[in-house]
């Protein structure tokens, strides 16, 4: 177990393009950190820099207090779970799990004990002598995690481990990863582009955009007080309505600001200040998504299924649910 510290971490590629800049982050021992952002935001590069698979051009990475900038991946005491699992196709599950331990000259008996333990935790015992290609996607995912936990490393690094699974399995595996991490208490850094995964797994979220940190905070903090229009638009589904202040005059916003209102913070109210022209309705079963315009700007609301709809709706905003952002910098101003 170990804390991980990133100090002014940055990466510039040889051709001069910047992948990651000025990242500062203190990850406590046992904490589950999720790096989230759209593709190309630098989250995977950041993770790979922690792993040692990507060179560091600025700043420092410390794992357990030791600067590891020039330490080989194998000597950083980390384990990684890859998006495509990266299981060795010619080795049985057992050999896959044992390979890293064998390379470290772990005694035979100790290897057997740890493999058995991991197989027990992940319920992959019956597959130990199969080759990866004989396993389903979910089973491969477990083996990939097994390979990480047998190492008993200081930290787990996850690189979009669930994105090759179908939606249903993704939900199940998400719960299992969370339960596993809670049980083992191992420091974890997890990369995903899926904001739902990020919200449900993280102790703290790091939202990245264009190689820079937009916001660091607990999922609820980030959800309730997004630090920028980017975070506001990225975290939460359906995405927050972001509308120029001029279209929502009631909001009491400075001229030129952007007003943000989450769709779930809107409700039908005949005396509400938001006049919406209805354009389309999407039924979700438990609720419905109502899309339309206000003041020429697109806007979406989450409404109960029994709410009466017409061509024109009046909507009210929940107490304290108005977010204000600076239009040019995108930063939060309230």
């Amino acid at each position, binding site marked *: 177990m170990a804390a991980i510290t990133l100090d002014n971490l940055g990466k510039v590629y040889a051709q001069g393009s910047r992948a990651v800049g000025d990242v500062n982050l203190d990850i406590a021992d046992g904490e589950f950190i999720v790096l989230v952002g759209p593709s190309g935001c630098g989250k995977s590069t950041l993770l790979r820099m922690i*792993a*040692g*698979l990507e060179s560091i051009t600025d700043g420092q990475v410390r794992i357990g207090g030791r600067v590891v900038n020039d330490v*080989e*991946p*194998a000597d950083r005491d*980390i*384990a*990684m779970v*890859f*998006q*495509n*699992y*990266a*299981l*060795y*196709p*010619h080795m049985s599950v057992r050999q896959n799990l044992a*390979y*890293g331990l064998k*390379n*470290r000259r772990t005694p035979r008996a100790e290897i057997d004990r740890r493999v058995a333990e991991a197989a027990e935790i992940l319920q992959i015992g019956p597959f130990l002598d199969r080759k990866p290609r004989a396993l389903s996607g979910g089973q491969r995912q477990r083996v990939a995690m097994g*390979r990480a936990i047998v190492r008993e490393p200081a930290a787990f690094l996850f690189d979009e481990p669930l994105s090759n699974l179908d939606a249903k399995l993704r939900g199940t595996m998400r719960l299992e990863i969370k339960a596993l991490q809670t049980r083992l208490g191992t420091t974890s850094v997890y990369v995903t582009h899926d904001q739902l995964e990020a919200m449900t797994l993280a102790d703290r979220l790091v939202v990245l955009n264009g190689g820079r940190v937009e916001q660091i905070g607990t999922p609820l903090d980030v959800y309730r007080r997004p630090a920028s229009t980017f975070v506001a638009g990225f975290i939460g589904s359906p995405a927050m309505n972001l509308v120029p202040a001029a279209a929502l005059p009631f909001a009491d916003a400075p001229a030129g600001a952007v007003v943000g209102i989450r769709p779930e913070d809107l409700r039908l109210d005949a005396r509400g200040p938001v006049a919406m022209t209805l354009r389309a309705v999407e039924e979700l079963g438990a609720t419905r998504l109502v899309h339309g315009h206000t003041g020429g700007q697109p806007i979406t609301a989450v409404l109960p299924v029994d709410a009466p709809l017409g061509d024109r709706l009046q909507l009210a905003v929940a107490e304290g649910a108005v977010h204000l952002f600076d239009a040019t910098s995108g930063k939060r101003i309230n």
Partner: protein
Amino acid sequence: MIENRPVLTLLAHLVLILGVAIVAMPLWVAFVASTHTATDFMSGRVPMWPGPHFVENYAHMFGQGVSTSGTPPIGPMMLNSLIMALAIALGKIAISITSAFAIVYFRFPFRRLAFWAIFVTLMLPVEVRIVPTFKVVADLGMLNSYAGLSIPLIASATATFLFRQVFLTIPDELTEAARIDGAGPLRFFRDILLPLSRTNMAALFVILFIYGWNQYLWPLLITTDPKYYTIVAGIKRMADAVDGLPQWHLVMATAVLAMLPPVLVVVGMQRLFVKGLVETEK
């Protein structure tokens, strides 16, 4: 097949049967000839069916060979061919797979130059530079040796490119996982790359074994000591003497024996053979 046209299908069968017959005809003629005696050819009519001298002729070739043309018995010649074919096939695979590993998994100065140096060998078939190559081998004292028979032929751009292609399809994540698992370059090569290239190596081996076994000009030039004669090159020496004393039955027995090992390899490992053929041309 799009629609059912019995006439066309019948025609196709006819074409194929005819094709198979044409392709097989030389083998049949050779086999038939190898089961007769020399005098059977003197009548001016070649026998169409096997004669009774199969055992006798083949035993003769294995026992004493055609002494009149100075070729040794078949057994040692076949052994030489086997040694040469194996040395060429395994040698090519060994030096190509390490070269491909270096080119794909390392960045070093003059990497491109090394790549091109290997590529150029494609453009220099042995027949084209035969005189100076012979001189180099002679100067190195490699005439009449197994090393001389095999080493000058083991550089292979084709095999290097094949392995390069195979390595390029192996996901980066696998290499990264191995690095995190504590595998250095050589351990990664041994534990991951070699096992993953196994079928490619086998397919390549089939093609290269045939290539090595069938070498003709090279062994003909650099072996003057019958101890190192290969069967494919030896057959020509035998046929040359035949002009004086026609021993076609023995020459054809040798031809059948010279064909047998590579043909068995192709027929027995057809799947690997086709894979090797198609892959080496990519």
